[in-house]
């Protein structure tokens, strides 16, 4: 297990995963930031959130996506960004499962607002989201020395405990 965690290739695999997921989040947040009203309507269509929270979510969530996406791409506080992405993916997936269970024929509202005809939610949407969730988990769990700002300026304590040579520390 320890050997798996210490494998140096994780940083490179995770870099690809980070850039992929990060760019997706950057692309996803754009229309939500530009048109918060449309995004609020997308959230309301799920019929899950209490009305009082719909707009607050529409206002805040795109900025979390923007921040997390940027952080993943540049490798700044990478694992925190991965934690946020994993949390958001969990939330989105649960929402889509509920919507599918209700039989709602709608767009997921993930990217630029599309109609239910062009981009309907389906079990494929869930598989896709679970895939992104898995990539975020991979970065969170195994990318202990992320390539990027975190590696250039590691924060004391938070980075790279796996690579520390404990025998050297003891001596």
């Amino acid at each position: 297990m320890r050997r798996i965690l210490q494998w140096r290739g994780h940083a490179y695999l995770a870099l690809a995963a980070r850039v992929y997921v990060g760019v997706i989040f950057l692309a996803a947040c754009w229309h939500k930031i530009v048109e918060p009203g449309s995004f609020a309507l997308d959230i309301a269509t799920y019929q899950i959130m209490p009305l009082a929270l719909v707009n607050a979510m529409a206002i805040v969530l795109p900025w979390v996506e923007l921040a997390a996406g940027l952080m993943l791409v540049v490798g700044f506080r990478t694992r925190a960004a991965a934690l946020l992405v994993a949390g958001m993916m969990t939330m989105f997936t649960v929402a889509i499962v509920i919507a599918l269970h209700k039989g709602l024929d709608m767009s997921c509202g993930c990217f630029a607002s599309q109609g239910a005809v062009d981009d309907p939610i389906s079990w494929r949407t869930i598989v896709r989201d679970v895939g992104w969730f898995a990539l975020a988990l991979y970065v969170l769990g195994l990318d202990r020395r992320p390539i990027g700002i975190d590696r250039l300026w590691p924060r004391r304590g938070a980075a790279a405990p796996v690579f520390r040579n404990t025998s050297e520390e003891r001596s």
Partner: protein
Amino acid sequence: MSGVAAPHPARAVARDALLVLLGSAVVGSAVNALRPSGIPFVQKTEYQILVPCPEGSGEAPGMAPNDPSLWEPRTLLVDARPASEHQRWHPQGARHLPFDYLEPAPKAEVERIASSGAARVVVFGDGGNPDTGEQLARELAGAGIRNVFFVQGGAEPLAAAAAARGGR
């Protein structure tokens, strides 16, 4: 050992994520407050959402409200209107199954209609455009129920026809 203990990595990750969350909330709220197209932080009125989910896929022909077969014993009348409208007036024996643009008709209700033994199922609704009666009739037909019709014009002309017949 250094003087200041470093936070546990997992705790540091959680703390960073929380800070990003809070920062995003502040930035998002500030931008929303400053922009002309900002939305209220708390929505007071319901969003007008229309999800075309239970759109009927079946074919259901219309039936004139004064068609005599409407009142035959083996005709099952189904009221697609909301409960308040149904309570105000409905033909005797009519089953209430309100049409919902968001939710499909409950399976149990559809099965009950399918196993009712009726020769025909005639749905009446609000007579609007679109007519909830026609929508529900198409939904029921799409669910595999045969001989489903809808009353042209909805409940109002049906009530008039029933009154002309001496009520039912």
